[in-house]
């Protein structure tokens, strides 16, 4: 930065008298052009090439296909869109997706917060291992997670057996192939988002604030609820939104553990696939567009939270 400033200054001084001597036309163009340039001048080469490639690749892979989806929905007659969007099966699928995602994200707030807290604040054997394992749901393919979870919670094995009527606890619970199973799968996929968003903020939390609270007579519980938690709120909200957004679109880990009954445990992404397989492209497009719009709104919400947090607490 400093280098480019020192370079540009003598240049402009040298150019200015010459421009005045040559006439008013170029003086008028030059400063104006500098102020309007799309890219800040730099000695580094390759801007047109890399930006051009980025934009082309982005358009071909992401933007044009997504635009195709919007176009497909937009060219449908309005009453058909309304009919598809308000069909009972569509509404129920959206409700199952959003309801279970919300529930899973709330569970993740509680446990994600505890896990993040334990990882940052306490030293114990196996802490590093626990820290590494948090990312497993990111790394484990969703289909693998799906068959593992449905095996664990099916009535005849593992935890499913433990809580079933035949199990030692005689609880008579059914988890797999019920909405509860969907929530469990969504907790699994959402957990790392929560932990990894809260953890860095907690790591950088100024412990002087806690000491200050303590010297002012706050007990530990008051310090946590009135000093630490408010500071973590933006991160918690961001983690919550990320986990929720991921859960709404999740497909692989859910379809194995849900019994996928229409109007009961059929998630929206599955309904899209069913409509596609029926060659009912308009229905698939409308449901997909609804999910896409929700995804954009979530993205906007996350950005707003972060802007707000930056204004409130400095950088997040």
């Amino acid at each position, binding site marked *: 930065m400093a280098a480019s400033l020192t370079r540009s200054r003598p240049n402009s001084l040298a150019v200015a008298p010459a421009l005045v001597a040559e006439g008013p036309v170029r003086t008028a163009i030059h400063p104006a052009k500098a102020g309007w340039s799309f890219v800040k001048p730099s000695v580094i080469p390759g*801007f047109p090439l890399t*930006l051009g490639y980025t934009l082309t690749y982005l358009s071909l892979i992401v933007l044009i296909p997504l635009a195709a989806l919007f176009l497909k929905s937009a060219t449908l007659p309005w009453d058909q869109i309304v009919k598809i969007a308000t069909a009972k099966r569509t509404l129920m699928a959206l409700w199952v997706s959003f309801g279970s995602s919300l529930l899973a994200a709330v569970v993740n707030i509680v446990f994600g917060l505890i896990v993040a807290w334990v990882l940052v604040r306490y030293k114990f054997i196996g802490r590093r291992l626990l820290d590494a*394992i948090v990312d497993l749901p990111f790394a484990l393919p969703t289909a*693998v997670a799906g068959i593992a979870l449905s095996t664990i919670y099916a009535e005849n094995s593992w935890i499913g057996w433990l809580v079933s009527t035949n199990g030692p606890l005689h609880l008579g619970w059914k988890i797999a192939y019920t909405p509860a199973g969907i929530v469990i799968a969504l907790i699994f996929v959402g957990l790392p988002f929560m932990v990894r968003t809260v953890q860095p903020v907690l790591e950088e939390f100024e412990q002087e604030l806690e000491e200050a609270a303590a010297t002012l007579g706050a007990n530990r519980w008051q310090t946590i609820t009135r000093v630490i938690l408010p500071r973590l709120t933006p991160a918690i909200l961001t983690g919550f939104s990320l986990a929720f957004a991921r859960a709404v679109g*999740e497909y692989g880990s859910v379809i194995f553990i849900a019994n996928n009954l229409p109007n009961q445990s059929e998630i929206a992404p599955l309904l899209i696939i069913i409509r596609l397989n029926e060659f009912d*492209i308009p229905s698939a497009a409308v449901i997909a567009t609804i999910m896409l719009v929700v995804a954009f709104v979530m993205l906007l919400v996350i950005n707003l939270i972060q802007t707000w947090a930056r204004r409130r607490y400095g950088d997040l």
Partner: protein
Amino acid sequence: MAIFEQDVAVYDSRRPDELHYAHSRPTSEARWVKWTLIGIGVAFMLLVVVLPLLVVFIEAFRKGVGAYFAAFVDRDARAAIGLTLLVAAISVPLNLVFGVAAAWALAKFEFKGKTFLTTLIDLPFSVSPVVSGMVYVLIFGAQGWFGPWLEAHHIKIIFAIPAIVLATIFVTFPFIARELIPLMQDQGAQDEEAALSLGATGWQTFWRVTLPNIKWGLLYGVLLCNARAMGEFGAVSVVSGHIRGLTNTMPLHIETLYNEYDFAGAFAVASLLALLALVTLIVKTILEFRFGDELAGTRKH
């Protein structure tokens, strides 16, 4: 602090072990709270995250080592493994080139609309995998934009390898770029400016200055991108057509076997992907531990 506690113990009439529970520092929790929280955290992680991983391996070997390896003798399983490797081998390098180009443009230059462009690059992360796959059906499918033309020219994209590759590229699109952009932004352009002022060409600067600077971040991004590319299920499921031995990737083959009640076979193939996830996590942890300064956004995904 430790000295402080000892001092208290000297003047306190209570037994030391009683004291542990009675007293806690004002900036930390009581011991029982601490261990309860650790207990809850560890138990939750074991139940939610570790158990599924263990179950994959236990179920894979339930019928013995012979049955486990028999699962890979199957021609369809081998075809699925081959296809998964092929798809990753095409999509990861493409996203690698894109990631480097995007990071170069976004990190080394200041231009209008930069923030917006960054948001657009992150977009695929917010899109449901199923939607990511279906957009290509709308373009290349039988009823899509280019459907009739492709059919007339006997080009198969949907229900064939090209669409699987496209869908995989879509879902793994941001991985490398979003790892490199903050890293290269932090590093600034001074190194490159120095190289250029010493007479290096643009390409020399990139290969000899920039690339060595970003190599660990690049590896980190490639690692995550590859794990997702090999494991992608939803997007690929929409466009593949599930043709056994032809368009079934490993995750899709797992689904096929599972739905046919061949659980041992399904978990055997799944164990390979679980192993890939484990290796990814281990290398990732090593990279974070050893080269944490040379990675950006280590904690963010």
